[in-house]
């Protein structure tokens, strides 16, 4: 098979003063017609940079310093801007990660798809409208005519991504580059989009360069796989071979870090309930002037759950299911409208402000975004010591305790003097854990604590969490959208949909024998659900 797109020793230089000299070093890849090549790697591996280099849309200061990109007999690495413009969109099209921001918010979807025809084909307006509609039908957007007239904010994430795909496929490009196209989507939507890409690729014979960090997605969609680390392709080959018999140590480590979907054997659970969530309700009312146009969202409706002492209760669901609102209700960051949160019998919701502050130290929270949840102007140690100081510890004692906690979560105690931006994502999440643990809580509420992390770092943080649970006898409420992660850390799981718990029980039972249709759909949507790394 001849390659449609061929990277030969492509090297991309970073500007002076960057953390490494080359974003890509000697990258050679062949993309054949009618195949999906997955480029996998963690953040900073240069996988997205490869896409930018092929399109010659590199950020300022970054340039191609060697090698060639062969496409239709031309070398794109040295082609002039005019040639590149003719190829972008028509010869090689791209789909991006964030369907929220990748479309211009001020122009209709149809207009933006039609733009492809206007710039490359110069068709009359009537024909453009017809072709746009046909494209939207092809990507199976509901109500294509309405979608064409809609602005991006009027469509859901999945619909927007369908529109993006329609736009990319408008001119039947030979190559489609998809840069993490499903990362920002819910698992059921992701399954649909992956299916759509696969289906269109088969029908049109397009060569797809699929960039992802998720081995589940790779297992689902890839014909061939290239694994990147620090700008170098460390291993490439057929999907089955790379996934099941990886050769390079980095690939082996990556594959091993993918959590399998089946749960480990259940641990014995205590009969003693530490936290009881009783028919908690939260309704949001937004907008509305003099009662007009008000919208009511039932974020959480009547959720009742028990957390046994020393256990981990997983709350899984898609975005908008109310799982994060529930987490915030437990620590009273959001005031629930009704119900009770009983911590060893004391109803937290009935406490007054001052009493709640005392009780707050027993229930602590870890947040999702390790970048946004730490104040960038305070030293890491101060952030950890802040809680105990508020609760009456002397600053010196609190700082000493912070150093111990740093050691406990696997950070260098001397690092307490540094600022949050000097830490990596995984390290920041450790700081977040240390901060929560500083008050010696009995219950930890973790809201998507590992979703923003790379898979290898994610595995480390999950291990740390399990270790701390044992050592400190913590009980954890673990909020996640990732069923693989849930399978690994949770003892009990509750599946939420539209503010209600549709099913809950021991994780092994729920995941192997789901009763509710929604749980079944959710489990069926997990990409590469049959893929489990050879242990």
């Amino acid at each position: 098979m001849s390659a449609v797109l061929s990277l030969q020793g492509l090297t991309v230089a970073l500007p002076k003063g960057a953390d490494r000299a080359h974003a890509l070093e000697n990258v050679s890849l062949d993309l054949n017609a009618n195949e999906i090549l997955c480029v996998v790697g963690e953040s900073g591996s240069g996988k997205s940079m490869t896409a930018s280099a092929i399109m010659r849309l590199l950020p300022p200061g970054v340039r191609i310093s060697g090698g060639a990109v062969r496409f239709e007999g031309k070398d794109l690495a040295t082609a002039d801007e005019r040639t590149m413009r003719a190829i972008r969109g028509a010869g090689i099209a791209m789909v991006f990660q964030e369907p929220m921001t990748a479309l211009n918010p001020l122009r209709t979807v149809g207009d933006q798809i039609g733009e492809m025809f206007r710039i490359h084909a110069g068709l009359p307006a009537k024909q453009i409208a017809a072709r746009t509609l046909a494209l939207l039908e092809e990507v199976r957007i509901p109500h294509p005519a309405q979608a064409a007239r809609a602005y991006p904010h009027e469509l859901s994430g999945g619909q927007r991504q369908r529109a993006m795909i329609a736009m990319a496929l408008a001119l039947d490009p030979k190559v489609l580059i998809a840069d993490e196209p499903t990362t920002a989507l819910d698992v059921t939507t992701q399954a649909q989009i992956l299916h759509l890409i696969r289906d269109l690729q088969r029908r049109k014979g397009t060569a797809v360069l699929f960039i992802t960090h998720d081995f589940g997605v790779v297992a689902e969609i890839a014909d061939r796989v290239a694994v990147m680390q620090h700008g170098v392709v460390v291993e490439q080959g057929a999907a089955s071979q790379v996934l099941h018999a990886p050769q390079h140590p980095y690939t082996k480590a990556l594959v091993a870090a993918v959590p399998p979907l089946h749960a480990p054997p259940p641990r014995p659970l205590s009969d003693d309930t530490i936290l009881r969530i009783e028919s908690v309700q939260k309704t949001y009312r937004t907008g509305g002037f003099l009662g007009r146009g008000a919208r009511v969202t039932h974020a959480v409706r009547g959720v009742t759950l028990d957390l046994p002492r020393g256990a981990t209760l997983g709350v899984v669901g898609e975005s908008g299911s109310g799982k994060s609102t529930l987490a915030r209700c437990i620590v009273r960051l959001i005031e629930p409208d009704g119900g009770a949160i009983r911590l060893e019998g004391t109803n937290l919701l009935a406490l007054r402000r001052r009493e709640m502050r005392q009780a707050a130290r027993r229930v602590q929270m870890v947040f999702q975004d390790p970048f946004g949840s730490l104040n960038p102007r305070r030293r890491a140690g101060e952030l950890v010591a802040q809680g105990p100081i508020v609760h009456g510890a002397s600053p010196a004692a609190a700082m000493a305790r912070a150093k111990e906690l740093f050691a406990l979560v696997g950070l260098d105690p001397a690092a307490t003097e540094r600022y949050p931006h000097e830490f990596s994502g995984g390290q920041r999440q450790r700081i977040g854990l240390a901060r929560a643990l500083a008050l010696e809580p009995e219950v930890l509420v973790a809201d998507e604590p590992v979703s923003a992390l790379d898979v290898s770092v994610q595995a480390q943080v999950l291990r740390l969490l399990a270790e701390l649970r044992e050592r400190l006898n913590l009980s954890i409420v673990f909020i996640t959208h990732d069923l693989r992660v849930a399978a690994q850390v949770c003892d009990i799981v509750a599946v939420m949909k539209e503010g209600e718990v549709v099913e809950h029980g021991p994780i092994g039972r729920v995941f192997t024998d789901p009763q509710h249709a929604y749980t079944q759909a959710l489990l069926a949507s997990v990409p590469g659900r049959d893929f489990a790394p050879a242990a």
Partner: protein
Amino acid sequence: MRVFALAGRRLAASLPTLLIILVGVFLLLQLAPGDTVDALMAQMGGGGDAQVAADLRAFYGLDLSVPAQLGNYLWRLVRLDLGFSSIYGKPVATVILERLPATLLLMASALSFAFFFGLVLGVLAARRVNGWPDTLISTLGLVFYATPSFWFGLMAIVLFAVHLEWLPAGGFEEIGAGYTGLRRVLDIATHLVLPTLTLGLIFLAIYLRIMRASMLEVLNLDFVRTARAKGLDETRVVVKHVLRNAMLPMVTLVGLQAGTMLGGSVVVESVFSLPGLGRLAYESVVQRDLNTLLGIVFVSALLVITVNFIVDLLYARLDPRIGAGG
């Protein structure tokens, strides 16, 4: 429809503001020593006939208590009667209407000038960020922003009117020339060139900075990358995708600054002796012409509210996300 609902709500919300402004100004002027009658008597050549003064006060309703005067005024206002100016000897509405065109014209031309050139220069600076055009434009902007507008006006008169004799030094039109039709329009236009530049430059500097910053921000957004990946050339990327998005903050600013611009026109009208609202306001304060002053406050407030209303409509037109409830 949603646009009008939004605009209607804004309009309703501005009514209390208007009332507070009027009452505030009314009470503030009560604190100033002297009233219209004192000013009138002084104009008539002084003389202290207490009986005449008392009669005049009774005639103008100035002998009533302050709350009663305020009540009277507001009640007249509800009937859209702005009262009678004792200084000018005609209804306030007439006095204001005579002066309004000059101010409106000045504001509109200064705003258009500042908006258009601020936009163009901001886009140019952003396209060549940190290059020499950017440095030049940004430095010029800083100079315009830092220089007081009356000084600009005076220097412009010295250079263009006195030395070069290209443009008239002041006034709204050539009085007594009796121009009509197109010739008159041209005449007014030449008279307005310097005032427009003087009033507009400071706003130009602000708009230019805002436009540059928001262009730079929008140029980094994902959809711009999408547009480039579609094969659009840089000019089309800027015109079709960046410009409208980058204009949103600037449009907001125009609405916010309509009031500031009205304030700035007081200075400019004085420097160029233009018969506008700003000058009228200054004169009525000096002459304690309360009715006229309140009338001006009322009309300017209406003007600012109208500009904001238009900006709201424009904004909703530019950005489909507005008013969608999200």
